């Protein structure tokens, strides 16, 4: 079953600021992607701002929304909703100077608008819909996303955490990159960085 996505952008001109007409049309034509922008998103924003139980988002697995469109309460509502319902959440905003990812409770990515509206956005969303995105950070790193996971795993290993890692976490890493020995990891990291 496809994973549905909703993109909520209250600034009507921003899509065209970063993407060409053809790219915007490609996005609009993506099945399972709902785009609300400009005045059309007022209603959904209003709902998020006013209620913690945002039923209208239930059908979506990934919610991408302009953070500044929401009031503080709306941001909290949405975060709590995603946490409770295990939704993936991408907040974007022009003022965010550094992308940040967290998988505590749910997958949460904070990115600059420029990093969201890239030419490969359509590919990312298409893959996501089909369940072929393994990690949200693929949006910002593209093909390099695996390096980040490998580096994070190596950090854990060097910290001496391997023995203390839960089997669930070990399995997660195994699924994502298929490696868990430090020696293999070092080799793979060196190779991946070399070809950048």
């Amino acid at each position, binding site marked *: 079953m496809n994973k549905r996505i909703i993109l909520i952008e*209250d*600034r*009507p*001109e*921003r899509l*065209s*600021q970063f993407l060409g007409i053809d790219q915007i049309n490609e996005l609009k034509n993506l099945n399972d992607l709902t785009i609300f922008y*400009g005045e059309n998103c007022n209603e959904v924003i209003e709902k998020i701002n006013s209620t913690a139980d945002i039923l209208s988002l239930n059908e979506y697995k990934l919610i991408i929304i302009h*953070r*500044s*469109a*929401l009031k*503080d309460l709306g*941001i*909290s509502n949405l*975060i709590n909703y995603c946490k409770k319902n295990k939704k993936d959440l991408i907040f974007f*905003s*022009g*003022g*965010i*100077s*550094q*992308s*940040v*990812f*967290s*998988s*505590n409770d749910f997958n*949460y990515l*904070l990115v*600059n*608008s*420029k990093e969201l509206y890239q030419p490969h956005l359509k590919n990312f969303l298409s893959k996501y819909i089909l369940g072929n995105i393994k990690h949200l*950070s693929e949006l910002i*790193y593209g093909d*390099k996303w695996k*390096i*980040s996971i490998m*580096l*994070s795993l*190596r*950090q*854990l290993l*060097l*910290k*001496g955490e391997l023995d203390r890692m839960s089997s669930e976490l070990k399995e997660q890493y195994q699924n994502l990159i298929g490696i868990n020995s430090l020696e293999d990891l*070092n080799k793979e*990291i*060196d190779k991946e*960085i070399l070809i*950048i």
Partner: protein
Amino acid sequence: MKALLVHNYNLNSSLIEQFGGDKFSLDYYQSIRNPNFSIDRFFHEELEKIFKNKKYEVIFLPYTLSIQNYLELTGLRFAAHIRLSKEFNHHLTPIVFIGPESPEQIAKLSNLGSILFTSGIFTTTKQDVNSINEQYKWIINNKPAINEIEYQHFLERIIITPPDNYQSHHSIDNELALVRWSEYLGCDNNILEVKENLQTGLYFKYHKALYPIKQSGKGKHFLINGQGKILLIDDEAEKGWAKFYECFFSSNLNNKSISLETLQIDYKISSQEQIIDAALEKFSQKENLPDVVLLDLRLCDADFKTNPQPKPEELTGYKILQEIKKINRGIQVIITTASNKAWNYELLLNVGANGYIIKRADNDVADDIKRLKNTIEQALKKANFLKKVFSVIEEINKYIHDNNLIDESLKKVLENNYTIAYDMLEKAFDNEKYYNYSYLQLFICIEEFLKIKDIFEYGDKCYLNKNIIVAEKLDKNKWKSIIKHNESTPSYWTLEENDEVINITTDFKMSCYIIFNLNQQNSKFLNWPDIRDIRNNKAAHPEKGRVTKKDIEKILEFLKHIFNNQNMQQPTKSGLK
């Protein structure tokens, strides 16, 4: 050991445990769900705590402070904050990065990796306390601090990109100017958020380090000489510019000589069309038009496109300027911009912009404020006169358009004359001679009016309205006429048959028109004798006298009356037999 270890429990635990200096764990993951989380603000605030009353000799930290997403490489960002925040007094302190990667590998993964190739930055792959202690000692003995020259090299080498909402140096200059100008007038308490961005944002720190800013100083509030209605059209109005102008005009707002308005619109979520509509709404009441408009050119996201960049004429501000000038050219539009591009200036002047206020971060603030005051005073002065002039000319052009005695080619000639006369009045604020030239141009319209054969037909017999004989040639220099010259000061004409007229002048023709077609006893109506004498004695002789604004207003009122077909009456008086 006067050393600091910053970490997020992401280094070998025995190193963290046994480290001999101060240790500070920095976990931004607790904060990233806060509604206004900004990593730069977070780092800045943490640095404030870390360095309070402390002086470290070496700082150790990992390349990243993230446990879940190594590529964030936030250790690099944190180090850049240390280097670029002189206020914490550790900007020259050696920094050691701990991690298994080589500096070259890190540099491939992040632009901020450029910091690794600057003086006073060291790296180690070893995570045991003995190696760290050795490195500490080595640094203390060999490179205890970087010097100012090395610091400059660091600034040249490091790569820090602005966040997306500061698409260009213009946005940076814009905010810096806002803060500096507000500080100068003592109203910077109104823009705390902007000030905080400037203080905590890494890019702003970098910008400030590259282009050190002189202290703004403190200025006094003053009264703007002039009165009128000012409209601010600026997408950053709510961010602080509206508050700044409220402060700038405060004395005039208090005594009600100036009113200040902004557009009640959220620029960020509005389309270009919506912004233009909201702007033009402010010009919907002809009797209550703004006098001066402070207009920014880039007002919506589409104006900030980078690929391709919008053409100047596609910018929202440009389109608004064009529309304002169609409504009333006398409204003074001052472009407020952080750009000093020549194309802007030339192009906008051609569409009718009346001036520029350039918001720069590196100018002398006192000069900027003085220039702002002068620009606005001059604009108010011009608007007070030119707005009225333009309205009257518009009215006259409408009468001309509706007047079926005037053929199409003459209509064009007259409209062109009025445009030239208006252009000269704009120039007259820089050189008063142009009042004279403008007056002459307007007087030509009277002469053109009198060339209409249905009004005055010249020949051996001169006719008014094709049927009233007002003069008949007796010989070369003598005319029999129905009106008589009265030699008072100023001279005028009355209805009385005589044979003393030597020439059929414009004065004669117009006096006939006034007495017959406007049904007056004499030609004094609407100050015609003055209008005539100003033309002959002042306008045509700029070396002798200057035409004044009042003179211009007088002739315009006269023109408005004569071109209005409704004012023309069926003559009741008889001409020559």
